[in-house]
């Protein structure tokens, strides 16, 4: 049985992520103890809340996380957790420039802006939206065209690591993957069968 560690850094509903991964067949440990990271078959970085406080809260686990990833342990970032895997985010920039992320993958997180679009869309983007797989990857096997549950005000433009997109006023990265680093902008643990399929795919590739 695959051992997955869900990194607890004080944000969000970790219970659902744990149950979703268990349903996907994994043995799950939710912990803030970074000494557990290197022993895991896979890591999950969840996240609800703001980028800056997320980065602050994960700071004392950063070394252990990066080391595990460099040793090849797959990591899955969820929602804010996905954004934190990237280069930087505009969220919090009013306090002086973009906030640096974990920089495992190239990508810049921006805020949705519908001031110039014909239809004024609501922010946050909250609800069920369709996934379009744009690049083959084990993580998105069997989910093309399915719906996933999103809640976010900031997004990443599609780029070289984007394997699935979704659209809300603009096309954005819904799933990113490169090597053993993965991220979903939506909440797979809240995305019913499509989300559980993604968690299962992740557990299988760990």
């Amino acid at each position, binding site marked *: 049985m695959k051992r997955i560690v869900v990194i607890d850094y004080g944000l969000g*509903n970790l*219970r*659902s992520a744990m*149950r*979703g991964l268990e*349903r996907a067949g994994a043995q799950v440990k939710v912990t803030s103890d970074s000494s557990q990271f290197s022993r895991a078959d896979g890591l999950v970085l969840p996240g*609800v*809340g703001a980028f800056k406080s997320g980065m602050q809260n994960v700071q004392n686990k950063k070394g252990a996380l990066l080391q595990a990833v460099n040793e090849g342990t797959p990591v899955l970032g969820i929602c804010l957790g996905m954004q934190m895997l990237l280069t930087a985010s505009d969220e919090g920039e009013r306090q002086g420039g973009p906030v640096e992320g974990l920089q495992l993958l190239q990508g810049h997180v921006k805020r949705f802006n519908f001031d110039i679009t014909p239809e*004024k869309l*609501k922010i*946050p*983007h*909250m*609800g*069920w*939206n*369709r996934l379009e797989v744009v690049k083959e990857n084990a993580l998105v096997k069997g989910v093309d065209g399915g*719906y996933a*549950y999103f*809640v976010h005000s900031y997004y990443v433009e599609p780029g070289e690591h984007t394997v699935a997109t979704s*659209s*809300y006023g603009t096309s954005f990265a819904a799933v990113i993957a490169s090597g053993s680093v993965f991220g979903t902008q939506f909440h797979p*643990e*809240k*995305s*019913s*069968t499509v*989300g*559980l399929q993604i968690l299962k795919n992740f557990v299988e590739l760990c």
Partner: protein
Amino acid sequence: MLTKRIIPCLDVKYGDGNRALVVKGIEFVSLREAGDPVELAKRYDQEGADELIFLDITASHEHRKTMLDIVKDTADQVFIPFCVGGGVRTLNDVIETLRSGADKIAINTAAVKNPHFITHAAETVGSQCIVLAIDCRRNTDVEKGQHLVPLEDGTLAWYEVVIYGGRTPTGIDAIEWAIQSERLGAGEIMLTSMNRDGTKDGYDIPITKAISEAIDLPIIASGGAGTAEHIYDGFVYGKADACLAASIFHFKEISIASLKQYLQARGILMRI
């Protein structure tokens, strides 16, 4: 494009025989099967519900811990967004309920009594977690209202916010309260008109439309759904982002799957 959402609601009461029961509806014959919140939640998740709302209508402090255990058991069965409300009075209630597996918290009476509670809660756990439940009732004494709404027959009325499960009028205009709550940091509005709740005559379209047009927050229409067409009307005429129903799902009058097929065929985007 976002889909419109279909949300079954579980009104859960703790009491008789120390059991938690889903109690909406008057069809006592079916009450037993409709009774277990955990089983119902599981069924709705499997049938394609887009979200689930759990309202503790016992809302008594002595049973709060027991109810949180039931919230946990229910949350463990659903892999869709899960909103919990009923008797949420303090920031600690909000945090404990989220820790029990809820994704969103519905606040009603406590927010009316202290509007800053919304801001406090939103700043602590994020606006996306805070659903403001507004219960209201038509008032034809137009002198007293701030925002007048034309009813189905063309007469004017205002909608008054009511609290304590609809028992206590507050004198507050519901549209004004919705506008204010957006500024205070609410993330979503769940709107129930007491004139329609339990009637199965359809949602109260005039107030649903008025609030949808007045603010940018997503609106959940609630109270009165008796047919698939009522839900269509809620989306199209009420301009709701989500429609909530209870008894029509509990007693299997309409399955979620067939309702979604019907709505999709009539041009409303659904997650199918």
